[in-house]
């Protein structure tokens, strides 16, 4: 038994992806929270995808004879000042808002994990350099930072995504770094070091998989938040440009008519709420799934 003679083969590099994939292979639906989240999100997404074939007015189609109509069978969410179907616009807006939300979350997650891991794992000069920049960015109130960036880059969906995610990245770096710092001293890292595991190995196999859960939760909050920040940017005229609908600008535009036609901004607002609740449950559920202890 003493001799385990083995031939050498290359070390597999896909550790991280494999770890993530493994989680989703395992009974994602077994979590009540994930089920609830999907119960909310799937119909919204399905409607969004099906929107082009649904028997509803196109989101950009105006109708001068059906302005500011109360919700009805024909216009489930009513119509706006330009006689456009709010339901249809909301669905189109969901698409844009989710794109914004997920892109922001993804960018913040990837950059935050990358830089946070580097800073936390290597420490020293790298850490100080990264954290100095992070401090500088954190010294701006985040809405102001987004305003500034949109002013530089112009309006439109890409600048909005970049601006919001850039404002989020420093927070993600901080979170990731603090997680890495606490993980770095854990015994299983030592155990891997005693077999001369490379730093790449330590980061991808031990550190990152153990930080993902918290980062995903932060990302889902960031995603929901991005939808709102986009709305605030819209309010200041820096968000997604109409007539292209986003949930944010629909709510913002409808705000003008709050007294005359409350449904214009309220119903899409409820949809934002539903999406955020869905994301919340989804992230919570995924976090639990990622944690083998809860299985």
């Amino acid at each position: 038994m003493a001799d385990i003679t083995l031939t050498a083969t290359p070390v597999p590099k896909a550790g991280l992806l494999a770890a993530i994939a493994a989680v989703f292979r395992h009974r994602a639906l077994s979590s009540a929270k994930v089920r609830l989240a999907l119960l909310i999100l799937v119909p919204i997404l399905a409607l969004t995808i099906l929107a082009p074939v649904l028997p509803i007015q196109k989101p950009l189609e105006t109708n001068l004879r059906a302005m500011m109509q109360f919700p009805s069978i024909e216009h489930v969410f009513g119509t706006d000042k330009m006689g456009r179907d709010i339901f249809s616009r909301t669905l189109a807006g969901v698409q844009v808002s989710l794109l914004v939300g997920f892109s922001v979350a993804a960018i913040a997650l990837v950059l935050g994990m990358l830089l946070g891991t580097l800073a936390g794992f290597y420490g020293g000069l790298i850490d100080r350099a990264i954290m100095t920049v992070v401090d500088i960015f954190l010294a701006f109130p985040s809405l102001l930072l987004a305003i500034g960036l949109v002013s530089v880059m112009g309006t439109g969906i890409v600048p909005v995504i970049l601006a919001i995610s850039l404002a989020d990245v420093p927070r993600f770096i901080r979170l990731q770094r603090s997680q890495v710092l606490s993980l770095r001293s854990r015994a299983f890292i030592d155990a891997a070091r005693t077999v001369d595991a490379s730093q790449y190995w330590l980061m991808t196999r031990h550190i990152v998989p153990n930080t993902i859960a918290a980062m995903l939760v932060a990302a889902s909050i960031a995603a929901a938040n991005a939808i709102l920040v986009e709305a605030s940017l819209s309010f200041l005229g820096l968000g997604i440009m109409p007539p292209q609908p986003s949930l944010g600008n629909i709510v913002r535009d409808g705000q003008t008519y709050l007294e005359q036609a409350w449904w214009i901004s309220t119903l899409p607002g409820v949809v934002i709420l539903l999406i955020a609740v869905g994301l919340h449950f989804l992230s919570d559920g995924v976090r639990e799934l990622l944690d083998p202890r809860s299985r």
Partner: protein
Amino acid sequence: MNYQAPVKTTLLEVRDLRTEFHTASGTVTAVDGVSFAIERGERVAVVGESGSGKSAMAMSILRLLTHPGKVAGGEVLLDGRDITKLSEGQLNAIRGRLVGTVFQDPMSSLDPVMRISKQMIEPIMRNLRLNREQARAEAIKWLGKVGIPEPERRIEAYPFEMSGGMRQRVMIAMALSCRPQLVIADEPTTALDVTIQAQIVEVLKNLTAEAGAAMMFITHDLGLVARFAHKVAVMYAGRIVEFGRVEDIFANPSHPYTQSLLGTIPSTSMLKSDRLPQIPGLPPDMRYPIVGCAFKERCAAAHDRCLREAPRLTDRGIDHRAACWSQHGLEHGATLKVERPERTNKPFEPDGSVVVELNALWKQFETSRKMVVKAVNGVNLRVHKGETLGIVGESGCGKSTVARLLLGLEKPTSGDIFISGRAQMVFQDPASSFNPKMTIGDIVAEPLVVRAQGNKAERLEAVRRLISQVGLDPAFAERYPHQLSGGQRQRVAVARALALNPSVVVADEPTSALDVSVRAQIINLLVDLKQELGISFVFISHDLLTVRYISDRIAVMYLGEVVEYGAAEEVFADPRHPYTKALIDAVPVPDPAIESRRTTTPLQGELPSPLNLPKGCAFASRCPMATDRCRAEKPSLPNHDLSRQVACHYAH
């Protein structure tokens, strides 16, 4: 035994106490119909492994359980009053006043942002109706009594400014300062070093006796029980399975569980070649109702009736009751040992070659405030092939740093480390030594993957072999660490350490987090592996009995230095360094007869700070034999060729 109850009146009577925890995964009946009584001035030890319900029972008595725990039934009569029926306000008049409590973890049991004075004085004022000055004087008096030096000054300290031992003394002073009639001490020494433990136990024992208070002492350490208690209650799966006077319990244990527990402790008279007796299996899952005797699966004497019907406590003698259908429990001796798995290889025979050599090893750390911690100061050690070196010493003595240096996890400040082959490690903390996101299979395979050994199939095969080698079912490879018990996890840790065919395995306190019954299993495993594979071990522990049992040689460390080195048997039988003597003296032996004969006072004081080392002998500040020479001149360890080395001017 010199026990004479002062006046035989019952102070506390617990009748059919039931405590339940309502968790998401079901209702756990942590305490299942416990009944017993404590007389005034009597010290009763409650013994049991983790999960046996002993703490839940103690907390139930004062209704200190937090959600989701709940007292579900029974009576707790304190001085004739049923505590379970009191209002919260009435209860508060009893807590602290009539019943004082000492908890397990001194590090977390005191409010970190409040000075000791504030935490101590106000309860005294309230309970003894004293004004602030009087209460303060009282508090200082008690701090002095529990052995806090300069109590007038230290009373203004914050808890974090004190060591764990000091904090536990404060806890004791707090618990006793309101003159309670009953002290409940929940594992008060578990988190402490053996030397400190001896001091604390001494303080507790003396002071309660002096105050005439009764005490309920919860522990899993049978040695402490022998040293301390008048009576013993043994708990298993939420029930008391045996209750009696301490000498009866140790001399004539009647319940198979008590009998097994006593057997698992390496005794001083035990031979190295003997395997430690071990209790097979695990305690039952308390979420499910237990049919019949809870111990039946692990009991060699179990028979049909045990499967169907739970035994009640029945008399076995004067003040001695046990809950077992058979009158004497296990038949003596024969039934305890489990069958040893058949070995295919012939036992390894040492050839005397050196596997590990440490020469003049120094390690210093710089703290954030530019101070230098001298963790390891000139250590020379050798480990031969197939030999186990035990390193003992109080926490902070540098033994773990030696281990980390050995494994290359730290770089030495100076000195050489020579290792023939590879060193691997088994860590203490089962919670953090495994990546919670990896399966057991992946964990064991990791060293192979990292070192790029074998292809996938070969590695899979290797993992299966390793897992079964440590006595687990290969199916465990699919599980995650949290799904394993502590003992199983330590087996996995061993399997991982073996994956790369190491020449030496460093085990840092591998059993300290484990229950007594499981501890024996791991020790047996390590001994087996040593014999089978010829691997050397460095075994670091503060558990001297275990170290003595498992080690061929022992190095005793104090403040980063080896103060005594020699063959395990010799060092134990004839300790030459005063520190070694003190350490061995501090270890409680599970034999009331031996314990009652002890006369030596425990080692005083605590390990000095490794920031400023004394010029002379490091131990001089605590040594009962220290002279001016010791304080001026540092004794050194003689040439390591000697089989026995002692760093003391007066050792011979």
